């Protein structure tokens, strides 16, 4: 076992991990932050997406030790301390951007990265950026709509499909 230390959602944390311990495992099991979901565990579905040093990564495809010294942000950092949803989360709720909710933490974290890089994305840009995040329920349409709304754009023209 090796000691790993990182900042997660603004707090310094440490733990003992094996070489093979995944970042997703560390966050969920050592830290109890179970908002980060593990869907496929093969790097395909994006449910486990979180941010490492401001960049989105699939945490099932990265070892915890590789985040030693890094700043990590998980879905738990998105809402305010009193539970008030942030703009993206609120838009997902308003536009029915989730059904079962399994993919949602990864979708929200990915949307946050997209809007950071591109504050007013087009519908096509949003769809392309979400290519690594799979949703089995919504058909994506309302997710795309929610992200457009979160970026302050008028979504009345986004056709219901």
């Amino acid at each position, binding site marked *: 076992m090796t000691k790993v230390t990182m900042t997660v959602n603004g707090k310094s944390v440490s733990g003992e991990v094996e070489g093979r311990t995944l970042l997703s495992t560390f966050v969920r099991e050592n830290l109890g932050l179970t908002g980060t979901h593990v869907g496929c*565990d093969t790097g395909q579905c994006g449910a486990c997406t979180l941010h490492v040093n401001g960049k989105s*990564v699939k945490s099932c495809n990265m*070892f915890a030790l590789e985040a030693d010294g890094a700043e990590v942000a998980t879905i738990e950092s998105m809402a305010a301390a009193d539970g008030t949803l942030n703009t993206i989360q609120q838009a997902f709720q308003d536009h029915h951007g989730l059904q079962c909710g399994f993919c949602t933490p990864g979708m929200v974290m990915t949307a946050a990265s*997209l809007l950071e890089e591109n504050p007013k994305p087009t519908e096509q840009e949003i769809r392309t950026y979400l290519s*690594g*995040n799979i949703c089995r329920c919504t058909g994506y349409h309302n997710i795309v709509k929610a992200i457009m709304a979160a970026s302050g754009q008028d979504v009345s023209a986004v056709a219901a499909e």
Partner: protein
Amino acid sequence: MYAFELERPTSLADAVNALKSEEAQALGGGQTLIPTLKQRLAMPETLVSLTAIDELKGIRREGDTLIIGGATCHADVAAEGSYPALSDLAGLIGDPHVRNRGTIGGSLANNDPSACYPAAALASGATIVTNEREIAADDYFVGLFETALNEGEIITAVKMPIPQAAAYVKFEQPASRFALVGVFVVKTANGVRVAVTGASEGGVFRWSEAESALSSNFAADALEGLKVPSDGMIGDIHGSPEYRAHLVGVLTKRAVTKAG
């Protein structure tokens, strides 16, 4: 996954030393290797991570050559932009999360027959720089998942000459986002090079007939009537060998038109 030790050296010298042990293996972005370990298709005793080594990261331009550190991630190459066709290619690999972790060295070392970077390296006439030597791209790609690298040899950089014109066109396999077929066309003062990925059972290859036709006339029309044989092309549920051979012709024309 079987258990292993993970080392994170901060200098190339330490990484080279750590990789001297027979059961040690390099870890780039892990985007291919971690899924492989989960399937228990590899069982290293030690993984030597290259991502904490600053000297292996970053991109710089020397004259008309772009020098990309071996542990530079796809997102950084996509954002750099001084070789537009290469940045285009990097920006189309997988998805944003894969591009934030996966590295050019890992992609070239892995030499997946459907990977994108091998096409860019071969078409550009790149030089693969390792801790031991420099290898011309023409000598580097040996076959399916096979390269000229020795055990423990690390790709420290890739030198990409920036051509007069170039373009990459990828016919994406929508589930994996790898290339069902991808064609990278490069035009320089010395002629045209065409590299094809995703198609052949032998991995990336140069389509020499197209190269000679395009060297005398750099236009999609110059390829009229040229075909690659379907012998030795990959056949799977996504496409037959004949389909892939056909795509090579179609995509090469598109790449020439795109390169202008």
